[in-house]
């Protein structure tokens, strides 16, 4: 390395032109930054925050507190109604010693083993930076029937595959046969428009998935519920059959790719690690990273093509405190919606109403309700089981680090009319110290009033019993707007990332199931636009997608 490469003064980043400037380190921007850097373009990647990930960040507890404060000060336009509590005051007073042992995801999501993001991670060879683990299981909560004892175990483990259905002693032989027939139907491979021509769906376009399961496969009410909420992750009983079947198809096809579970999560706080991995990949290919106030943009201008007089001129010009003169670019990708403060499209693109409410709690003990939920179904057929089987079950009992708990609509008194889900993570995920747990709760926002605590508290009470969390935060999230792409031919327009057909319906409801793949999908469009905008300068870099 020669000395000339070191910054010669405090505010000199060494170069004043980058082919691409990316603002925000959310997932799709980071994927785009990595892909564009890998294809030989010079990339400047900025984030006004001090941490990576933007809306997909994993934060330490002290960062989380600051994040909530920023929301309360209306500095983060994608969030609202945020609050935090330290029910155990000793935890708060010791915070500076322990805060960094936590990685809390502001976007808790699961990653199906088949989909756009997994494909991107493999294609861009970024998966090697991240440790993934399987989700250990899914349980649904069953409302006690009238006359039933309160003590009855109310958690139903969702069978993750055919072998688990066989072992499930709570199912009758007839149920098993019907369920198996349904799984054969739902899991068979088809093209993306295969569902349009599916004979069993003809004339049932307006049927809900629950009606469809009952009428077409004669599944019992309980089984249909388990399938609709525990496998298709429907949020409401009225959800239509087709989108639910499409999700189930992915669920079943994801089983077995990396193990018995169809879902993965990234260690150390989930998607935040994935965004960091893409940023690292981008840096490895020469991308420059400036986080925090040093990279905060001012004096942004975007010159339309007809006004560009000669080829040495660039469409984008901006200033950042880190550099002494204006930085130019051919294209700017803004995932934060903050580059143009009064941009009309930025405000149009961003939803005004929150779409979901979330809660994150840190627990220092395992509440009995959660213990029940994550315990495997008690099966009494061990006598006939061969040694292989019992080994499997033992593994299952030990693995309780990542678990999904689903509350179907109306299953908790005073709760939501939609399904609510809880994602539970133990210290094995690296997101909290040993002996502690992180619990994420998510629900659709109520239409009339958005008070995350009001919506989620009944569920939290149900799960925690008398266990008091160390820390708890509530917040409401608005729908993610598409990133803005600024370049000379097409100025100031949203990236127009029309979702693929599988995401048409109810995309926001299932942001935690398909949200990560949506980001990979958005990134593809950003990469295409980035390559188009720079193609006249970078001979040899093809605008075609790989």
């Amino acid at each position, binding site marked *: *390395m*020669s*000395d000339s*490469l*070191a*910054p010669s003064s405090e505010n000199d*980043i060494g170069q004043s032109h980058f082919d691409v400037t990316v603002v925000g380190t959310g997932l799709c921007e980071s994927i785009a930054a990595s892909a564009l850097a890998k294809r030989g373009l010079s990339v400047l990647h900025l984030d006004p925050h001090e941490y*990576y990930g933007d809306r997909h960040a*994993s934060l330490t507890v002290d960062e989380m507190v600051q994040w909530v404060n920023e929301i309360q000060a209306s500095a983060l336009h994608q969030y609202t109604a945020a609050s935090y509590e330290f029910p155990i005051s000793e935890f708060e007073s010791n915070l500076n010693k322990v805060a*960094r042992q936590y*990685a809390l995801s502001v976007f808790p999501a699961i990653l199906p*083993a088949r989909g756009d993001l*997994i494909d991107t*991670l*493999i294609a861009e*060879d970024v*998966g*090697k*930076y*991240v*440790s*993934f*683990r*399987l989700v250990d299981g899914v349980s649904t909560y069953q409302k006690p029937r009238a006359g039933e004892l309160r003590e009855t175990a109310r958690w139903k483990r969702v069978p993750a*595959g*055919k*072998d*688990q259905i*066989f072992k499930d002693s709570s199912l009758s032989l007839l149920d098993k046969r019907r369920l*198996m027939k349904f799984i054969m139907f739902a899991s068979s491979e088809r093209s993306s428009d295969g569902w349009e021509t599916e004979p069993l769906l003809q004339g049932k376009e307006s049927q809900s998935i629950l009606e469809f399961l009952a009428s077409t496969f004669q599944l019992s009410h309980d089984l249909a519920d388990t399938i609709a909420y525990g496998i298709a992750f429907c949020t409401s009983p009225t959800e239509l059959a087709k989108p639910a079947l499409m999700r189930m198809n992915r669920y079943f096809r994801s*089983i*077995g*790719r*990396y*193990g*018995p579970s169809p879902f*993965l999560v990234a*260690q*150390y706080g989930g998607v935040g*690690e994935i965004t*960091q*991995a893409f*940023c*690292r*990949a981008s*840096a*490895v*290919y*020469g991308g*420059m*990273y*400036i*986080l*925090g106030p*040093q*990279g905060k943009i001012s004096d942004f201008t975007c010159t339309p093509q007809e006004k560009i007089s000669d080829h040495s001129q660039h469409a984008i010009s901006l200033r950042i405190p*880190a550099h002494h003169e204006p930085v130019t670019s051919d294209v700017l990708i803004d995932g934060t919606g903050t580059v143009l403060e009064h941009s009309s499209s930025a405000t149009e693109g961003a939803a005004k109403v929150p779409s979901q409410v979330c809660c994150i709690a840190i627990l220092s003990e395992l509440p009995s309700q959660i213990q029940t939920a994550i315990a495997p179904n008690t099966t009494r057929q061990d006598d006939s089981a061969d040694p292989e089987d019992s080994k499997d079950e033992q593994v299952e009992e030990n693995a309780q680090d990542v678990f999904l708990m689903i509350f179907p609509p109306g299953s908790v008194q005073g709760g939501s009319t939609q399904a609510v889900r809880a994602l539970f993570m133990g210290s*094995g995920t*690296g997101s909290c110290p040993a002996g502690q747990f992180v619990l994420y709760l998510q629900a659709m926002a109520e239409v009339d009033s958005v008070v995350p605590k009001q919506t989620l508290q009944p569920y939290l009470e149900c799960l925690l019993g008398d266990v008091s969390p160390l820390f708890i935060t509530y917040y409401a999230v608005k729908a993610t707007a598409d990133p803005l792409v600024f370049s000379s031919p097409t100025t100031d327009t949203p990236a127009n990332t029309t979702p693929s057909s599988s995401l048409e319906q109810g995309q926001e409801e299932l942001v935690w199931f398909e949200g990560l793949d949506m980001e990979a999908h958005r990134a593809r469009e950003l990469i295409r636009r980035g390559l188009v905008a720079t193609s006249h300068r970078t001979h040899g870099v093809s605008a075609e997608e790989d």
Partner: protein
Amino acid sequence: MELKSYDKYRMSFAPPTTSVKLVLLGEAAVGKSSLVLRFVSNDFQENKEPTIGAAFLTQKCTIGERTIKYEIWDTAGQERFASLAPMYYRNAQAALVVYDITKPASFIKARHWVKELHEQASKDITIALVGNKHDLVEDDNDGDDSSLRKVSIEEGQKLADEEGLLFFETSAKTAYNVNEVFVGIGSKIPEAPLLKPQQPQATDGRIDLSTGTAPAADGCAC
């Protein structure tokens, strides 16, 4: 690199290899990449360009009966504007904090990185403090005022003692002490507890995404 297949062949007979993630830290131009290049390929390039294109380099190191496979992560320049991702430190079992013994500012920066590691990295990380560019001072006579050396061995050793670090002065250019750094770290890395034999889901639960073509667990053809 031709060694690879031979290594693989040898590995199947050798005791299990301990895989160690090692991260590099230090001011720009102190010779981080050169040290690694020297260790990995016994090579040195006079005017090496800043690191581009290497995700991480791997190199095996045999210490007595043990073989340690280093997975060496470079900062990729992300430290320049204090934007090194927390991910960089995750699971790192070893770190090299490198400074240039002819540049006092790089030693101050090294102190900063040691502090950062204590805060960000796992508690049992093995850290080596490395004063590089020893070749520039090796002809010095003691007490020569015109020496290029600006950070004394004593200063380096003192910081290492205070913070519980290994300490070496090296030259990536002449290869002086370079292997010693990695052998020294390797002998301080605790032996990994022998876990269950390799499963598709590796010992630490880490899944290799690219190998996810394992037959479905529910392979039953009923």
